[in-house]
């Protein structure tokens, strides 16, 4: 757990932080959008309903005629007013965006109105527009809130083509960095948990078991060793000599135990009663046991006979065959069940 899972989560956390930083800086969505169309070809150009507030509420409409002496006008009004003004004409409608920098248009003919004007006024004098501006060559009109407005552009009676551009500055940008930071935080939390809580032996997580006199095996590694070992394994294949892993193996301590088993055998009889083990858990025995218990293997907790005891037993078999075997070395199980010895 600590050797593999925790470093993996750690690397993931670092990756997510890096991605979050990139999303916040290099890959940030653009806030200024300008879409343009040129060669409109008709006298009147108008935007469809909702087009002006497509990206953001406030918009800047710029019209540039191909000749610098032509009178161009742009006005903002409601859709019904604008379609009333251009009744009976062929107009170019701006219908949408094609990618982030160009507008789609379509030419259409507006139905004729039923009433004709008695005293027609010029474009910029009309009462219907909420804002209008006229100029020669090119004109710009900004609107703070264009949510239900439509733009109408009049290129003059001698209309040649003109280019129309709509510019928005996005005030609310989509945020891709925060989810990355959130994931990085989760991975960091998982790293910490995997290195500490999830790597604890179960008796430490539940309740303490009674103290064991036998020495604990050192088969769980320190965190730093685990990281270094993983990194070394990754980089080892890139050209360095492939070293033997430094991971401590469970076999080595057992061999040590086997070797030391003979010495306990010579000390005298050791009474080990397996039924004395408290299967439900044990109260805390003190801080000195903490270090050793962390390194115990899970297997040890589930067997009545510990591997050390088995090792001792086997070593005694190895020393059997001498004349003094009856009077010595009584350990658990077979010999005592064999009945009384006389």
């Amino acid at each position, binding site marked *: 757990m600590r050797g593999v899972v925790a470093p993996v989560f750690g690397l993931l956390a670092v*990756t997510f932080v890096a*991605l979050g930083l*990139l*999303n916040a800086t290099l*890959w*940030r*969505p*653009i806030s200024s*959008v300008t*879409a343009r169309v040129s060669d409109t070809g008709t006298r009147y150009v108008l935007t*469809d*309903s*909702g*087009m002006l507030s*497509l*990206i953001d509420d406030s918009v800047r409409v710029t019209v540039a005629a191909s000749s610098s002496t032509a009178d161009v006008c742009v006005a903002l009004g*409601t*859709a*019904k*007013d604008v379609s*009333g*003004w251009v*009744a009976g004409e062929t107009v170019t409608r701006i*219908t*949408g*965006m094609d*990618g*982030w920098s160009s507008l789609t248009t379509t030419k259409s003919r507006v139905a004729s*109105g*039923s*009433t*004709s*004007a*008695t*005293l*027609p*006024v010029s474009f910029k*004098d*009309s*009462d*219907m527009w*909420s804002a209008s501006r006229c100029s020669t060559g090119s004109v710009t009109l900004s609107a703070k809130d264009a949510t*239900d407005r439509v733009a109408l552009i009049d290129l003059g009676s001698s209309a040649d083509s003109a280019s129309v551009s709509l510019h928005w500055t996005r005030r609310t940008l*989509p945020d*891709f*960095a925060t989810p*990355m930071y959130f994931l990085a935080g989760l991975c960091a939390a998982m790293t910490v948990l995997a290195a500490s809580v999830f790597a604890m032996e179960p008796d430490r997580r539940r309740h303490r078991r009674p103290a064991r006199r036998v020495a604990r095996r050192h088969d769980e590694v320190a965190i730093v060793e685990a990281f270094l070992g993983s990194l070394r394994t*990754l980089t080892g*294949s*890139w050209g360095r000599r*492939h070293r033997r892993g430094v991971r401590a193996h469970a076999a080595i301590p057992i061999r040590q135990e086997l070797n030391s088993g003979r010495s306990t055998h010579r000390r005298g009889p050791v009474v080990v009663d397996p039924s004395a083990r408290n299967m439900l858990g044990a109260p805390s025995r003190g801080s000195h046991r903490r270090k050793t218990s962390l390194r115990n293997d899970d297997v040890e907790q589930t067997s009545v006979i510990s591997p050390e005891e088995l090792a001792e037993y086997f070593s005694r078999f190895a020393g059997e065959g001498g004349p003094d075997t009856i009077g010595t070395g009584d350990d658990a199980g077979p010999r005592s069940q064999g009945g009384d010895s006389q």
Partner: protein
Amino acid sequence: MKARHRIAAAAAVLLSCAMTVGLAGCNGQPPVLAAESSSTQTPDLTVVQEKAIRHRILDGIDKANKAKSADGLDEYMSGPALAIRSSEIAIAKSTGSLDAKTAIPSGAVQTVIPTDSGWPRSVFTITTTTSDQQSKRLLVLRQDAARDNYRLWAVARLFQGAQLPKFEIASLGSSMGTADDSGLVATPAQAVARYADVLEKGSSSSYATQFSDDYFRQDLATLSATVQEGMERNEGTQSQTFTPATGQIAVMRSTDGGDLVVARIDSTWIRKAGSGRQSLPASDAEKVLFGKGKATSTMAVSYVNVIALYIPHAGTGEKITAVGAERQPVKVEAR
């Protein structure tokens, strides 16, 4: 073994880098324009726009008043208001100043803005009282076509104590009506025609019971009675005929189901002097309009009347009420 390890590691690094591309923030596609779902009625003008239009029109009329010339007045006025104001200016040219009743205050207490998307469109505005405490005016601003501007189509002086119906607030807008609106005590066209009949015949008209008494009728009745006395002394006769002008009607629907109607009624007053006498202009105004004409025994004075009627909903059973009127002689001729 080493080479395979290296290749495997390289592939793993590349794959993980490739997968992280999906986590990169992109702009994505620009939003698509949704199809128009125009079901809500929006007012044709904002309150700010209406105020600007009203000020523009009243300023133009003021200029013509000051210049005492009706030239260029048709840019700001149309319909019955134009006829009435032209006559008032002609009278003012010789009397020296406009009649006090021609004052139109520029402030407004209520604006009724239509939501209709076609043309012609009418905006009803109720002004404040004048500076010399005359009653409020009901202005009808009308845009005949999309390429026209708004012009003052009718002005009616509201009667003191007249109850106007309720309308939606200006930011929501009200709906215009037509001359044939049904569901009312009478259609607007019928109501105007019946009122013209009542004006002509007085209480002997068959429609007299449908209308509640109002200041205009009382005023006219008093005037007729006075003139009649004078005529009888001179063995003359007099008669008035009232004819509603077709198509010169503006209707706005109120929130209680009734309609507020402003219409033009033309009337002619024929006075015949008896026993060889001449029939002369009866007032200063008529004198000015008559000008240098030659008086005969018959004098015909043409009037333009503007009346504002409130027609209640059919279920209420109430009477039609006149809430405002205007009356002005426009032509005096000897026949």
